[in-house]
Structure formats: C-alpha cells, structure tokens
C-alpha cells in the first residue's frame, strides 16, 4: 500500500473516520475487550450473585487442580478433540480430492455435502437424536431388521461419545471440504502436467505434489477444527446433556453449570481462563507455523 498524502484541512475530514469507526469500536471495547478483562479479574474472586463476592487470589485455580469433575470434563473434551480433528481432516480432504475437479454435477455434490453445515447445531442435534433413539430410532430399527440387537447410541457412555463424534463430522465435514477444494484449485496445473509427463502414479502425485502444497491449508483446518471442538456445547446440550452420568460433559458445559446453575461465577471465570489459554495456544501455534511456512518458501 503506497502511502497517500494526508487529506488535510477541514474538521469534517478529520472527524469523519472516527465517527465511522465509533459504533464498531465501542461494541468491541464494551462487549469483548471489557468482558475479557473482567473475566480475568473475576477469576481471582469468590463471586456469587446471591452471597456476594470476595477477593481470593489464585485460590480458584488451586481448587481447579483438585476438582475431579474439571479434570474429567477436560479429559472428555480432549478425547473428543483427538478423534474429531483427524477424522474431519481425512474425510474433508478425501471428499475434496473427489470433488475438486470441475465437471458435470460436481457443484451439486459439493452443495450436498455443504448443506448440513448450514443448519444450526440445535437442529442437527435434534435430527440425530430422532435417528439414534433407542426404541423409536431408525438406526436401531434397521439393526433389528438385520437381526441385530439395538444399540444404546446415546445412553451408553462410550457409544454416546462416538455418536457425538460422528455427528460432529457429519455437520462440519462440508465446511472444511470447501476450504480444501479452494486449496486444491489454487495448485497450479503445471505441476500435475509435469508429473504426468514423468509418468508418476496417482499415489506419488498425491504424496509428492498435492499434500506438500496443501500443507498450509491442512494446518489451518487442523487449528480451526481444534478450536471449534474445544468450544463445542450445543450438540451435547440437545443430544446427551452431558450424560449418561458425566461421560459426555465437556468443558464449556461445566463452566456453564458452575457459573450459572451453582452461582459460582468466580470459579467459572477461572475455568474460562483455562479455555481461553488453550484457544490462545492453538491460535499462536497456527500463527507461528504459518509464518515459518512463508519464510521457508
């Protein structure tokens, strides 16, 4: 961007940009920056709407260390992330490889896979709860027709987690597929033409050309889907409500429960700080990795 000579002169021209910026800036400051600062402060307090507040220093964080439920929900969240992210990458990339070439009907197929990403997670959760119902669900009905025993899709701990992972993939794969298609279409066709002349097999082309050139995009997808998975709450809310027991209770749900149902806002704020740190960590990793990617070239 070439520096432009300053438009000097009238008061109106100096004030204009500030006026244009003000509504936006105020909202950012009041509803994002201020709460973030307040949250950090609250995490150092015993904060309750009914029984008042008091400064406790780092006690909330100390309590976290010995809070079995916190560790349980953190572990649940990590397990979910560890399954969701690689599966999403593999399926999204697979679909993108199948659908990235222009051709008759390809747009339609892409649109099909993209459709679930446009529905709210509440709707997705309800749809799947209907399908996975133990007595009335179509999945168990099909199993029954095949002479199999019905499966407790949402009422058995391990199965409930597996179901949540499956539904997450179903609803998000189209979104990341589109990102990969964008990445694939940005690879210059000359690379492929050269490989063809050299007689490279499809597998070699994929490993030596496509995947290395797609690496920055893969990284973006990994980071975005990781952050998304750490934040997830809606699907769980409608599909399992954290159950059975607490086997699908994730970090965000526990924060909500502690802060709003048990009126321990300071403690909830402390947990939020942990969530913020995790998300900040992944964003930083992405930032650094992307920077290296560019300097390597």
């Amino acid at each position: 961007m070439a520096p432009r000579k300053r438009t000097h002169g009238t008061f109106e021209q100096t004030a204009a940009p500030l006026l244009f910026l003000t509504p936006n800036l105020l909202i950012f400051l009041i509803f994002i920056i201020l709460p973030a600062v307040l949250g950090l402060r609250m995490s150092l307090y015993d904060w309750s709407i009914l029984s008042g507040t008091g400064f406790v220093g780092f006690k909330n964080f100390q309590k976290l260390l010995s809070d079995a439920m916190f560790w349980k929900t953190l572990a649940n969240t990590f397990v979910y992330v560890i399954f969701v992210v690689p599966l999403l990458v593999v399926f999204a990339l697979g679909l993108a490889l199948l659908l990235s070439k222009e051709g008759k009907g390809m747009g339609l197929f892409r649109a099909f896979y993209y459709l679930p990403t446009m529905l709210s997670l509440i709707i997705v959760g309800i749809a799947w709860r209907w399908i996975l119902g133990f007595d009335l669900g179509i999945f168990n009905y099909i199993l029954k027709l095949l002479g199999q025993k019905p499966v407790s899709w949402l009422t058995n701990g391990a199965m409930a987690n597996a179901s949540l992972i499956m539904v997450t993939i179903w609803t998000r794969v189209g979104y990341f597929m589109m990102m990969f298609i964008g990445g694939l279409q940005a690879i210059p066709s000359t690379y492929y033409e050269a490989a063809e002349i050299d007689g490279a097999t499809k597998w070699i082309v994929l490993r030596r050309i496509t995947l290395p050139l797609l690496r920055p995009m893969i990284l973006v997808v990994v980071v975005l889907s990781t952050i998304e998975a750490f934040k997830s709450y809606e699907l769980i809310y409608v599909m399992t409500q954290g159950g059975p027991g607490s086997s699908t209770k994730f970090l965000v749900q526990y924060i909500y429960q502690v802060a709003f149902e048990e009126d321990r806002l300071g403690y909830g704020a402390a947990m939020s700080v942990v969530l913020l740190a995790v998300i900040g960590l992944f964003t930083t990793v992405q930032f650094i990795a992307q920077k290296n990617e560019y300097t390597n070239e």
Partner: protein
Amino acid sequence: MNKALRYGLLALFSCVFLFPIFWVIISSLKPQSELFTYPLTILPRNPTIANYITAFASGDFITYFKNSVFVAVVATLITITINVMAGYALSKFYFKGRDFIFYMMIGTLMIPLQAIMVPIFLLLKNLGLLNSLWGVIIPPAATPTGVFLARQYIQTIPDSFIEAARIDGAKEFLIFRKIIVPLAKPIIATIAIFSFMWRWNDFLWPFIVISAKRKMTLQLALANFVGQYQINWANLLAMTVVTMIPMIVVFIVLQKYFVTGLTAGGVKA
C-alpha cells in the same frame, strides 16, 4: 465405466449423507400414531400436516418465530452498517492508531463467547440487557470477519472517486452513502448472508441472555423443548423443519457459488 462407477458411488454416498435431513422432513409429515408404531415405513402411509398445524396453533411458536426473524434481520442490518462504516474508515482514511485498531479487532477472534460468557452475563445484567432481544442483537453485532472483509474490499475502490466527490464539495457521509455503499454491494451481500445465517442459527448468545419464554428465539425454544422430560416428537419435528426452511432457501440461492467452485466458506461475518 470408471466414470459411471465414480458418479454412482458419489450419488449413493450423497443419499446416505443427506438421509438424516430427509428423514426428519418425512417424519414430520407422519401422524403421531405412525411415528411410534412398527413396522416403520420410509414414506408416510397417511401424510399429514397436522403436526405443523398444532405447532402453529400454539401461539408460543409464532412468538419464537417472530423473535428469531427480528433478531436475524435487525442484527444483520446493524452488522452490515457498522462493519462497512468501520471498513471504510480503516481503508480510506489515515489517522494515528489505525492499524492498531484494525489488528485489535482481528485479534478478538481469539476471544470466543464460550470463554467470556460469565463476565458477559454480569455485564448485560448490569446494563439491564438480560431478557431483551437487544441484548442478543447488539453485543455481537461488530464482527472481526465483517470488518476484515469490508476493509479488504473497499481498499480496491479507487481513491480518485472519493477525491473527485470531495472537490465537488460532497459531505463525508454523502460520499459514504452515494459512492462507497453502491460500489461495495457485493461484499455487503456476502456479509449480510453470513450474518443472517449465523444469527438465525445462533444458540449460545440467546441462551445466555434470554430466560423468559416469550423472548426466546426458535433455536432456544427447540433446545428447551428437547430438555423436557417427555418430548413431543410430532410437534418438535414440525418445528425443526420450519426452523430449517430459511437456511434451505439461502442454500438454494447460494447454489451457483458451489457450481462455479467459488466459496467464501461459512465465515461468521
């Protein structure tokens, strides 16, 4: 042959993939009795819209629908207005701290609502915005992605247009309205579509702000419905389908972008 096989597999896989949506729509057209009797049939034996009539007959559902429309439409209007104004200020003016403000706005992407919902709740309580649709609309109206997209796009508008208008003595706001807004229409449309989709589908903001039944949005009401001990599936399925419709319409409108391979992705703008 190979090609036919490929298309065949893709078509088959797509059918399986889209089955859940199909199944919910089909089920919503079955009478209550058919939903719960074996053997299940794919198509309803006696298709009916009774579930829809019952859903709409309860005044509550219409209230939720109105609330959702109000939030999605008003919030989208506010979002495009303030984001395009900010994008203009950050791209066509030079002032101290401009880049700092821009990067700060983008930096807020790192602070998701899930991580600040506790202080947000207290803040809105103190501002008297709890249980108000404005409490849902205003706080997330300024979006980093929206500012980013508007700024990038407006940068491509030649400065000479603006300078010519200034020489003609046009006021700054008039320049914005008569030059910038018409030229930025494509990006305004993009931001509007994604804002509308996000607002229509959003659950967490209303969930934190609204607890009174008559202020609930559709998503909130649906989630609330599922939380009940006995779920009335016949009604719930009809409501779910109605809630889906606006997104299906957007989807059909957006079709051509998929066909041409052009996508902005589903950014929260």
